[in-house]
């Protein structure tokens, strides 16, 4: 039987069946197509400007390694004129981070990029190992995630860089969308789909150039490009929990490969449907069409790269309880419910009469974040005290007395 030829170049033998659309491609065509698609994302969203200094959030894992490799390739091929820097966070997890940091160090040499490593200990006075010692394994990913997000921003600031790119892929974004639907969190749903986060007022903006790249293709790319990456999962993250949304997405992908991208598309469309409180506080003007930055999707989107967007079973149980309580309270107001149909109908009529054709039209709006700065550390935060400082306060209170 004759070997199947690549559908793209029609000369080489097809070696790869693209997970995205099941097209059969040869090795070099696959690599080119993958790079071209990322290039497309970068140019159509206008992610960079010539001469921009960009920090790549590098964990040593497949996503960030592929991101660094692709950005280097594209920067040279298409003359982006970018000044690329690797930025790595040392959470202080023995047996996980020290090994992956070695990978990042090798990457820095391989890609000829400067590397900056920022440690949790120097930023917060706590390593993750110490955090786990204090609070146990449960829920520590929250700490890690909150600390890391700030760490990347702070590290970038130290380097005088205003743009951090992360290796979030399409699977991550799709997962976050489903998770926010399950959580019933429309505000975060509308924010999480944006390719650029952090608005003009924040000092560091974030973007995800791999937003439309399938995780499986990232793995394939790393494999066929023979990239040097670190594949062990964080030793604290397993706790047997793989993420409700995660496994659902994997099942959906099996049924219809395009499902991941379709979810991303749905998420972007739904972001436009989320009622907005007042458009003036929203940098994206409610359209979500261009890559205008929106306020960062900060709190609780999970921990480390491999854990991003996942919610633990514990969180789900907690939410179940909370919703149940709310429901119980609502039941007590049963008399009010009698008048509800009337008000509901009236409300609907009112809504119909509103002449506004775009922007806010619902009184039950979802509040957007208003960015300010943290009272303690001066860092950007929507609350008076940023999440990292809140968590630190709790940690410091419980710091074992033995540590003199």
């Amino acid at each position, binding site marked *: 039987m004759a070997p199947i030829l690549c559908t793209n170049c029609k000369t080489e033998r097809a070696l790869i069946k693209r997970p995205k659309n099941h097209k059969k491609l040869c090795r070099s065509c696959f690599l080119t197509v993958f790079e071209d698609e990322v290039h*497309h994302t970068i140019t159509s969203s206008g992610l960079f400007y010539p001469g921009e200094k960009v920090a790549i959030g590098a964990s040593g894992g497949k996503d960030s390694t592929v991101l660094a490799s692709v950005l280097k390739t594209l920067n040279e091929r298409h003359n982006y004129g970018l000044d690329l820097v690797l930025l790595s966070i040392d959470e202080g997890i023995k047996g996980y981070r020290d090994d992956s940091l070695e990978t990042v160090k090798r990457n820095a040499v391989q890609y000829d990029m400067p590397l900056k490593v920022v440690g949790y200990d120097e930023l917060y006075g706590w390593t993750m190992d110490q955090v786990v010692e204090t609070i146990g394994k449960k829920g520590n990913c929250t700490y890690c995630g909150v600390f890391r997000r700030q760490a990347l921003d702070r590290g970038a600031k130290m380097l005088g860089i205003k743009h951090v790119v992360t290796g979030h892929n399409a699977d991550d974004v799709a997962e976050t969308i*489903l998770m926010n639907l399950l959580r019933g969190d429309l505000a975060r749903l509308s924010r999480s789909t944006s390719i650029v986060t952090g608005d003009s007022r924040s000092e560091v903006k974030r973007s995800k150039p791999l937003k439309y790249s399938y995780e499986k293709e990232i793995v394939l790319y790393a494999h066929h490009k023979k990239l040097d990456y670190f594949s062990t999962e964080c030793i604290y993250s397993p706790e047997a*929990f793989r993420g409700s949304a995660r496994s659902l997405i994997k099942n*959906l992908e099996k*049924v219809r490969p395009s499902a991941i991208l379709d979810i991303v598309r749905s998420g972007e469309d739904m972001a436009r449907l989320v009622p907005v409180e007042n458009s003036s506080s929203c940098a994206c003007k409610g359209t979500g069409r261009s890559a205008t930055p929106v306020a960062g999707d900060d709190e609780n989107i999970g921990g480390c790269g491999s854990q991003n967007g996942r919610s633990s079973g*514990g969180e789900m149980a907690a939410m179940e309880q909370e919703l149940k309580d709310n429901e119980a309270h609502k039941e007590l107001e049963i008399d009010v419910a009698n008048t509800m149909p009337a008000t509901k109908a009236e409300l609907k009529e009112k809504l119909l009469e509103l002449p506004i054709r775009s922007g806010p039209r619902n009184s039950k709006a979802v509040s957007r974040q208003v960015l300010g700065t943290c009272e303690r550390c001066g860092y950007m935060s929507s609350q008076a005290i940023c999440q990292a400082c809140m968590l630190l306060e709790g940690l410091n209170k419980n710091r074992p007395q033995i540590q003199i």
Partner: protein
Amino acid sequence: MSNKMEEGQLTPPPPQPSSVSVSKRCKKCSVQEATLDSRGAPVCRGCFVKFINTKCVKQVAILGKETSRLITPRDGGVRRYLVGLSMGGVSSTVLVQLLNENVEFQLAKGRNAPFELVFVYVDPHTSLTLQPSSELSSVVGGSIKVEERLRGFRERYPRSEFKRVPLAAALRLRTVDWSSLIPPAGANGGSGGTDEEKKLQQVFDNLPSATSRTDMIRLLTRHVLLNEAREEGCQALLLGSTTTALAELTLAETAKGRGFSLPWLINDGSFPITHHQDPIADTTADAPPTPPTPDGTTADNTTTDAPTTAPNGTTTNITTNSPTVTEDGKGVGGETSSTSMLVYHPLRDLLRKELVTYASLVSPPLTDLLLSDFSSLQSGGAVVSHKNLSIEEVMFRYFEEVEQNYPSVVANVARTTGKLLRLEEDAEKNGRCGVCSMPLDELGDERWRGEIGDPVGDEGGGGGGGGGKGRLCYGCERSIHG
């Protein structure tokens, strides 16, 4: 079961309300002995049934207010609702029971019946030989059984009408732009009659996957139901979707790239109906306007009654563009070819598992009307191949599990999705999708193609991009052309 269970993602289940001890009193009436669990509270049989009833009645009351402006003395002041019936499914069967109870209750009090009910089962099986195992083909099992079941319904609920309409009836509708589904060249000859069945089979044969076929069945079923509701002179179409089903629908439609359509699918309210002018519909419209009765599929008295029971003046001719009962003048600025129909989900506040319990509690139990293995057919057994599985089935399995441990989370999904806005301005600007009637988003589609770097015509084989003239939304494009 599927591997999602092995992965044990929903790790610690919440403290399940301990199986109600025998001696406990009902938390609601404090009189009867509690034998059941209702959302964490021990309740007696009577209070459980009442709870289910109240939840439904509340929604029907909202609908009653909404339809009051549509009722004219000409209609005799009587509301008329069309209800979608899924043969053997628990939700719609319970809805039949609850709505009829409501009618009986009012009649027993010496009042007029609050509404007339027409139940319609849209039957995909008269014409379609679906892929084995995957779709619901095996669920209903043959047309004889369907007739038997319908008889069961008619005997138990003599005041309501029960109809069966073949899915192929959709081919006669102008609310679907058939040019995007049937390749114009491939239209082989005649129209009407059993050719329709063949034509429908052809449409389904052209679809790329089990998900697409399930998707299309759902879309076409809705078209048929909306049309039936119109022809029957009904003010609203009621669907039996539970909160669990709505949550499933939310995530399934999201996974199919139809996130934008959720405000219309999950919320109650008017659903857009668009009429398309195209040659194929013209030829098929030559068929008699009243549904013919091929091989006796609709051969029951309700069919013959239908045209006469349609209240005066309500047009039954599908080809007409004149506005019918619920033309939404405000929403669609003067477009004569657009109308709408109210779509309501009276069971939206109830979980599927609660209805399963309820079905066994009413007397006589509804079990005879239910297909005992309806749900097990969808969820049971290990997944042998994902190829023949549809996204809907994946969601069904997923939520079956979530509903068990986190019912409030499930309820919250539908509630939250209900807050999303309907962007009607898109429809005014770009028109509507020829298949699902949702507003088109041309700018969005163009930007999307750019962002994912998908050159036009990338799809290569199969559907032949841009073949049909009809304009499709992202979700329908995906379903039809893969």
